[in-house]
């Protein structure tokens, strides 16, 4: 079975979730083709091979320098029509979700989105995915013949060990649309910068209304830095203007599943849980020992976060030699 994996490239490098998709593709099929679109993408092609691609279709062009719906969908749909893979996978990022939806619409393929488990039942994809704010799971399957599409939630599938000695055929592909046929023009970009993306983060330290103000995020940021993690927040803290929306975790923010989620001054409302329930280990720090967050947590510390976080930070620095 032939599996296509769209490799999402940021700043010349594939995102970790694309490697997770390559790893899953190897389990589902026997021939894995990485699709690398962009400009100046030779490093990304190498990385795709190292993480499990048997072949790479490469489209290197100025019109593809940054992901845009129209040129990317036209290119992907054209390649799917030409090569007729059984399965097309991508990470369920904002771009991956748009791209696979668009291409599936063009080729009339069945689509399963933001899945956390994926397997083959006969020749049809079958997925498990959280719905309704992660309160229940939905088991879904593709019913139609032809190429099947699925987007994979970041960190739901293991990342394969890279093997730099792997290589394979590189097939060059030309863009499907000329620049003047593309309606959307990107005028400027404010990059998320060097910050660790919340959805890829293995460790998140998050603060809520309990931090009391913008300066209350200082101990949160310090601990995140010690642990090499990202900073999260509840909606209450975001709505108060203490921290930008990009940091919001929950139903109307980001859905994350880090190995470790430390929630400080967050009560654990159902809408917050929707974004962090699948974290492997949850630590709750709250001065109210009855806060609902403790029902979800593996470890809890009842007390003042301004007292506890600096002490935790101190201990981590000692034991991690930082």
């Amino acid at each position: 079975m032939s599996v296509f994996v769209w490799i999402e490239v940021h700043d010349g490098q594939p995102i970790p979730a694309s490697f997770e998709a390559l790893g899953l593709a190897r389990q589902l099929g026997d021939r894995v083709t990485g699709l690398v679109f962009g400009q100046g993408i030779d490093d990304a092609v190498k990385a795709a091979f190292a993480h499990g691609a048997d072949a790479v279709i490469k489209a290197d062009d100025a019109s593809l320098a940054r992901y845009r719906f129209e040129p990317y969908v036209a290119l992907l749909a054209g390649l799917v029509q030409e090569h007729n893979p059984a399965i097309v996978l991508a990470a369920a990022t904002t771009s991956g979700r748009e791209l696979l939806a668009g291409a599936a619409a063009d080729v009339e393929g069945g689509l399963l989105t933001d899945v956390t488990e994926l397997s083959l039942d006969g020749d049809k994809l079958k997925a498990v995915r959280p719905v309704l704010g992660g309160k229940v799971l939905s088991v879904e399957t593709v019913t139609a013949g032809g190429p099947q599409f699925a987007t994979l939630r970041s960190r739901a599938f293991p990342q394969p060990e890279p093997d730099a000695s792997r290589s394979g055929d590189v097939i060059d592909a030309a863009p499907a649309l000329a620049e003047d046929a593309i309606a959307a023009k990107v005028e400027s970009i404010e990059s998320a910068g060097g910050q660790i993306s919340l959805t890829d983060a293995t460790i998140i330290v998050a603060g809520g209304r309990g931090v009391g103000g913008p300066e209350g995020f200082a101990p949160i940021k310090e601990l995140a830095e010690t642990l090499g993690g990202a900073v999260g927040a509840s909606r209450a803290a975001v709505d108060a203007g203490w921290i930008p929306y990009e940091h919001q975790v929950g139903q109307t923010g980001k859905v994350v599943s880090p190995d470790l989620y430390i929630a400080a001054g967050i009560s654990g409302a159902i809408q917050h849980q929707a974004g962090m329930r699948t974290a492997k280990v949850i630590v709750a720090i709250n001065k109210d020992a009855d806060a609902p967050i403790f029902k979800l947590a593996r470890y809890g510390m009842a007390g003042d976060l301004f007292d506890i976080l600096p002490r935790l930070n101190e201990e981590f620095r000692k034991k991690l030699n930082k």
Partner: protein
Amino acid sequence: MHVAVITNCTPDTAADVAVDAGGNLKVDDKLVVNPWDEYAITEAILLKEAHNAQVSILTLGGPEHEEALKHGLAIGCDQAIRIWDDALQGWDSLAFAKAVAAAIGKLGDVDLVLFGKELPDIASDAHIFQTARKLGWTPLGFVAKIEALDPAAGTIRVKRQVESGTETVTSRLPAVISVLKDINEPKYPTFIGIRKAAKASMPVWSLADLGLDAAAVAPKAKRLAYQDLPKREGAVEMIDDPALLVDKLLEEKVI
């Protein structure tokens, strides 16, 4: 200018949900307007105020979704249409997209289609991008702000919030956009608005009205069952000493 906004009802985020032995969902509360759609509907009304736009609000679903249409009418949408047909039962994102795209086509002169960011009950936004594709229009997803809209020139400039940062994008109209929660302060219906909406008629467009047949919207994916979440093992372990917590976390190998 003609703006169409697409909405649905969904179980309340605070509602308790349970799965029965047959894999069916039991929700202990009535449906509410999809909270994401409140921003899309409000944005449509803001465009009406700024550009004298006509606003149509559409839903795809059974009568239980009329509440979302009434909400829209009550805050100022001009007409409401419900798309439904027995053949749409068990729709997937592509069936949704085809029916909604056909309805937009039937309206004829739509310049801009607005969606809330996603539908929580299917936990997906695929239907938005597929609607755009079936219309052959540019989708601008995850819009945090409409910075400029020029109906005469047929152009729009938006700020999109995506993983890699914030993009400022210009595009041509007609276009399809999905909006994020920070785009505006949702409007709420007035008493008079609610009274007016209660009296409004809401036509139902069937597949035949849309020029589609059942085969065209046959789903290509379907739900087999709902499942409960796996139970989290054990209760929380309360710890007083930060040093002990650090040791436990190092033992768990999560750092």
